[in-house]
């Protein structure tokens, strides 16, 4: 059984928690045991939000410093809060135009998801643009097809689902 540890971080309202649920659904569809954690409460009011996901038979969802394989970052300013969690050779997928000053650890790929979201009138789907972008890379644990299947399984209004799938595919095209 493969073991993968993923961190998703951003600020309240960006859909960090939704993304963690999406990856959890993808894990279930792949038949992989999963345990994840999402910060709640005050985070909903625009504060820092982060989710930990551990795939492959763990007891606790919390990831210790230096152990995350993958980091999905929806807001670059959140990097200092989660960077220490990443492995030295970890993989980062970041919503941003340029690498932050503190960058340096791990292999980073950038996608200007906020600008793309505005341009394509998908203002609430920054999260899925980043997810689609990441999933286009072979070193991300799930493929775009797996994420699309998970989106289709999750309950949502049809219009929102369509926007989410469009954003996923938009991100994927940039990532390919």
């Amino acid at each position: 059984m493969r073991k993968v540890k993923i961190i998703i971080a951003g600020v309240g309202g960006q859909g960090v928690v939704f993304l963690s649920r999406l990856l959890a659904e993808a894990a279930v569809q792949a038949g992989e045991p999963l345990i994840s954690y999402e910060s709640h409460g005050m985070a909903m009011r625009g504060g820092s939000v982060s989710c930990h996901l551990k795939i492959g038979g763990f007891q606790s969802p919390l990831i210790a410093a230096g152990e995350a394989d993958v980091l999905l970052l929806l807001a670059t300013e959140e990097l200092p809060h989660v960077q220490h969690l990443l492995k030295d050779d970890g993989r980062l997928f970041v919503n941003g135009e340029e690498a932050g000053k503190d960058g340096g650890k791990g292999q980073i790929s950038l996608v200007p998801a906020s600008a793309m979201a505005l341009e394509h009138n998908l203002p609430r789907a920054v999260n899925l643009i980043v997810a689609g972008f990441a999933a286009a890379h072979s070193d991300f644990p799930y493929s775009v097809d797996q994420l699309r299947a998970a989106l289709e399984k999750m309950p949502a209004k049809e219009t929102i689902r369509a926007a989410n799938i469009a954003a996923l595919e938009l991100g994927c095209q940039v990532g390919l």
Partner: protein
Amino acid sequence: MNKKNEAIYLGNEAIARGLLESGCGFVYSYPGTPASEILPSFITQAGREGQKVYGRWTLNEKIAMEAALTVAATGLRSAAVMKQVGLNVAADPLMSGAYIGVDGGMIVVSADDPGPYSSQTEQDSRFFAMLAKIPVFDPSSPADARTMVARAFSLSEKLQLPVMVRPTSTLCHARQNMSPEPLPHIDSTPRFNKEPSRWAATPRHRFVLHQKLNRKLEQIRQDSQFSFYDGSRDNRQRLAIVASGFAWSMTADLIADNRELQNLCCLLKVDLPFPLHQPSVDRLLADFSHILVIEETYPVIEHQFGRRDRVSGRLDQLIPGAGELTPQLVETVIHRYLDRLPPARPEKATNVRPRRPRLCPGCPHRSSFYALKTVLKDGIYTGDIGCYTLGLNLNALDTCLCMGASITQASAMYQAFANRGSGIPPIAAIIGDSTFYHSGIPALINARMENSRFVLLLLDNETTAMTGNQPTPASGILADGSQGLGLPLEKIIQGAGIAWIKVVDPYDPPRLRETLEAAQEFVQAEDGGIAVVIARHPCMMDAEARRRARRFATVSVTDECTGCDTCIDSYECPALEKDEETDTVRIDALTCVGCGLCIDICPFGAIVGQ
């Protein structure tokens, strides 16, 4: 491949699943992070599977506890669900209910918040269980919580005793995959056996009930289903680690990853931290000279070992006495105890603070706070519990004690200054609608009785916003969406004898300011008293309210901006951002809801709406 039915459950959904699978038909709760999702999930899952259940939000946790105890007195299974500080409110019925006991199974879910993240304290509900003398389960994962709810019901019914299940916030908000069981058919009917020496016990009978309760606890203390050490030990292991709940999960993952620790440490999981299984304690003390206890948040298990010389944990300060446990902290503690250096790990950046929470874009409270500090300048603002505690950020809230305290604090501030001061500053109490229903009503009656004088600013967003927008008693909408009998705030306030009441929309700042001025005039008038201003506007978490908030297609900042930061500092809308390059303010179009309330804040008229 995907196992049949397998689905992902949030910890709180798993607890709800456990309630339903145990045939529990009655759940009472007051919303509070981290326990808020349990009742809605109980109702939703039941509805989806055609199970008829009764789930209700109550005005406060005391009512939830009383109702659940009473339903259980008729032989039915029930639960009271709350966060840890809610248990303080429900303490009175719990203490008494432990003596009286139950007929049907009754469990108390009290969710703790180590950290704390979203609470006034990080108190340990397991200590509360110990004080009440009821058993408490400490689940280690969502799946474990679901199983423990079922075990708690069996134990409760067998011993006719309320039983607590204590999750922590990380567990409540963890997700895990599991395969649900079909829901049982509930065929029990209520019957109330009159037994005054029990249900209406006088002090003489209470003594007898107390003795009976002690016997029940002794029985549990010897019950082998709660054994956590059977005496089988690997001789290389020189340290026993006793852990429960989420602390056990973290420790288990850590040891699974570290062969050296596996050889040295024997990790034991306690399901029931109180009362602790006595034979396990005795065997452990016989087999190991060193025992380390890892638990959250207070030393409940550790206290019960009673051997300070051989047991380490929080009491000898090996583990810090405050704050949440983290995998790194647990790792450091174990290594320090074994006189070893913990593995090197990257340090968290210390020079950055997490982004602080703030009121939502377009939040009507922001406008109310701004008007309050403008009109009641240099006043004392006694605050309360809810989103609006964030009025702190705006320097428009000075206190936060507990649910409903704002009104009594305003009253007592007034009396302190009126009786002993040389002048009375402007005083305002700030309370949300749901908190007012929870425990503000008796406080208001009391304040009026004392003839206190202050402005009561009631922030009415017609919902319980902080915890996920549960309906309030104003609408009378019940937890399952059905219609009960509503009671508007104004009627209650009138009923409390308050004559000066005005309702105003905070989206109309000039009127709000005028109203607050008039309120303060009344407070200071010769025949004045308490003036109540109800600032009523729907919460922005509501999509329709957000749509209606858009009074401008775009709100933007012109070249007139001098970068004085007045808007950011005194209004703190998340859409207002500082552009570090130009040293001016800009408005983030993705975040802005187009309410334009910030337009009037700019001293240079640089914010414009189109």
